[in-house]
């Protein structure tokens, strides 16, 4: 069994109090477990199952009604700012006075985390999202029953129905950093299934803003909690991975085009849908399911309002456990999870921040990537699975048409979350090298 020592990031204010708590009826923490949930209420946003993918808004069929609440700008950011005012976050991410108290991290007993298994059963004794306080939950998110967007500022939590919720991450890497936890009360382990993945796509589509992205880390690819969740945040700059060129591999059922990243340090797939969100979702989730069943860790980056999805198998944790990563890189303590792989680096040491360069970031990302040989194996594995499903379209064409070569180097934005000290968040100007 491969293990690495890992100090998990605190995602909830209730995580650190683990084990100190006695429990008992109405545990006093106002959590989401049986003790506290009766009578609890949360805002509820019900989205419309609008399945068609469109480039823009249809000019000739103007939008039907204006939604009661703007999902991203009003609801999500409003509830988030409200939690800022209530002081729920561990630091003000906009002030950069990131009191990322590493000392406290280190005082804690490091969790031994099994990294060589992508699928592990849910363990109720460990931290999970039912243990967070209700004040950390922003709202419930579900499909509307009457196919109109609806918003209820105060909806009861329907335990039978196991709502999906959006909660804050108390150690945000950006303003508006949240977690989407599908069917929270079912206590699903970190494992992609078709329904949950489609829900994540609906959330990206509902936000309707290309700068609001969702991400997923499998176990073994730097997920820190084995309770099904996606992360999301808003950052109005293009991520380097979004600027990378892709070489089309093939078109699958439902007009889902699959390409391969061609000038990016991490090898990966790009999925673009032409028809329905569901076709796109199924193509990606089936690929993820294939990876997790084959015990291959991966990250998923949902970009451009769910119009483009990046799937990146990785092997960093395995290399790390086998002692194959250079100590220099290990010292940075950068965990290459979905945001890092997509080019938004969160650095932990002042030194790294000062020395941050495209070359350094590139070097780290190159360590994350599968080798070309392994990547081709994984590709074959995925295609076998999707092709089986894809009976309707026997002519899966292998058109390897290269896009126009682009000799501009890709850039990497790098962020710093330094303890105590305040540094400029990296704007392109100091770190984008041309």
């Amino acid at each position, binding site marked *: 069994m491969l293990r690495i020592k890992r100090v998990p990031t605190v995602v909830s204010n209730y995580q650190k109090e683990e084990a100190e708590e006695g429990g008992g009826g109405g545990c006093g923490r106002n959590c989401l477990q049986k003790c506290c949930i009766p009578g609890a209420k949360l805002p509820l946003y019900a989205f419309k199952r609008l399945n068609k993918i469109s480039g823009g808004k249809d000019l000739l069929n103007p939008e039907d009604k204006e939604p009661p*609440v703007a999902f991203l*700008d009003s609801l999500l950011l409003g509830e988030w700012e409200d939690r800022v005012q209530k002081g729920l976050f561990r630091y003000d991410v906009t002030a950069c006075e990131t009191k990322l108290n590493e000392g406290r991290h280190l005082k804690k007993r490091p969790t031994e985390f099994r990294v060589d298994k992508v699928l592990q059963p849910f363990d109720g004794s460990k931290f999970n999202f039912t243990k967070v306080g209700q004040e950390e939950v922003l709202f419930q998110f579900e499909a509307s029953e009457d196919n109109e967007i*609806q918003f209820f500022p105060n909806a009861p939590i329907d335990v039978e129905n196991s709502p999906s919720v959006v909660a804050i991450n108390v150690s945000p890497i950006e303003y508006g950093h949240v977690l989407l936890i599908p069917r929270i009360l079912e206590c699903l382990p970190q494992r992609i299934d078709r329904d949950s993945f489609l829900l994540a796509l609906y959330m990206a589509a509902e936000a309707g803003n290309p700068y609001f992205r969702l991400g997923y880390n499998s176990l073994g690819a730097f997920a820190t909690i084995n309770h099904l969740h996606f992360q999301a945040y808003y950052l109005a700059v293009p991520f380097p991975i979004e600027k990378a060129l892709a070489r089309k591999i093939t078109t699958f059922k439902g007009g889902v085009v699959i390409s391969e990243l061609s000038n990016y340090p991490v090898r990966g797939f790009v999925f673009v849908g032409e028809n329905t969100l569901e076709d796109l979702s199924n193509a990606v989730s089936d690929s993820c399911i294939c990876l997790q069943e084959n015990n291959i860790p991966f990250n998923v980056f949902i970009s451009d309002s769910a119009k483009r999805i990046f799937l990146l198998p990785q092997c960093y944790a395995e290399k790390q456990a086998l002692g194959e990563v250079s100590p220099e890189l290990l010292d940075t303590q950068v965990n290459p999870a979905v945001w890092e792989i997509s080019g938004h680096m969160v650095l932990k040491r002042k030194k790294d921040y000062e020395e941050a360069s495209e070359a350094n970031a590139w070097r780290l990302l190159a360590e994350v990537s599968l080798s070309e040989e392994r990547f081709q194996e994984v590709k074959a594995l995925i295609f076998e699975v999707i092709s089986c499903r894809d009976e309707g379209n026997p002519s899966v064409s292998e058109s390897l048409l290269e896009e*126009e070569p682009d000799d501009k180097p890709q850039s990497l934005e790098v962020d710093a979350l330094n303890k105590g000290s305040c540094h400029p968040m990296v704007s*392109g100007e100091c770190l984008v090298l041309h």
Partner: protein
Amino acid sequence: MEPQLGQLELSFTDRYSICVRETLNELPDSFTITDPSISGHPIVFASNGFLKMSGYEMAEVVGKNGRVFQGPKTDRRSVLEIREAIRQEKSLQVSIVNYRRDGRPFWMLFCMRPVFGKEDGRVVHFVGVQVPIMRKRRQSGGCNGGGFCGDGLGFRETMIGSCRREVCSDSVVELSRVLALDSDGRELEVEEHCEASDLEKTKAASAMNNILSVLTHYSELTRRLVCGKRCCLAGMGPLGSSLILSLGRIKQSFVLSNPHLPDMPIVYASDAFLKLTGYARHEVLGRNCRFLGGVDTDSSTIFKVAILLSSIKESIQTEQACTVRILNYRKDKSSFWNILHISPVRNASGKIAYYMGVQIDEGSKNHDKNGLSPEMKPHSAVGAVKVAVRSLSMIAGTSES
């Protein structure tokens, strides 16, 4: 919420006078002009060439954002490039798939350039030129050399999608046959990337130059000069058009004040603020918020006002948010109770860039019960402004300290 037609009209005629339309329409090219300072970055002018090419009526296009012409076959990476160019106020040239009114996709070369106002260096408009990319045609009789023999005019109707299909059609008959084929529902080959020829690039560049010279010329008539190059005043300029674009999406009443300028003047006022107070934007920008206070004749409240003002001051000194209830006056001297929420807004380096004031008119009870709770409303505006300011100050070159 769609911008008012009057606003769209004014965006254009205020700057270039009314006569500009006629002159622009004499140009044969397909182009659109958009205004980034209006919420949603709408098209304020579309040339006859554009309408002919796209199949839309003028009224269907004005007020819309250019993205409505994109569709599933539009490469997302190219869309990202356009978005970034707008945000960074840069020129751009990209090949992209657009859709006509009847739903048919076609390749075009899209060139875009910002137009700057001379008085403050702000982007007032973007000009977008669309040149359909002709399919590459086989060398045939009468068309020697070059390998490309579109004359750019006679074949303007042949841009029906595929740029790869090797068809050589000189006659209208041939053309209609091809059109008929396409309308039979045959899959158009727009999948592959299509690059514009030098001829098309030249055409776009000369169209752009003509348009810019018309705009420059007519801006002289209104004495609100524009130019194709930024002639910027360094330092604390006005807000960038990309920030205004983001702020324009926020529907609530709010203002931003710049604490780094003497007397903390208002540097941005939302449409809802102007509606609430009855002032025009130019009457508000550059002034300190206190003009809303007006003269309160009731002396007993003066003391309260003093307390209020000191708590606002304190909030600013301690860099904390605060909420106060204050009596304010509209332009027409009518008063309203303002639930004023003040919050610092930081830029990407963590420094306070603005103070934001969100106004909620206590008297207006028009919040429907399905919307956000009234307590939550100012928070949503603050949240949206914070991400906008933070993100935009990350762009190279536009960061403000």
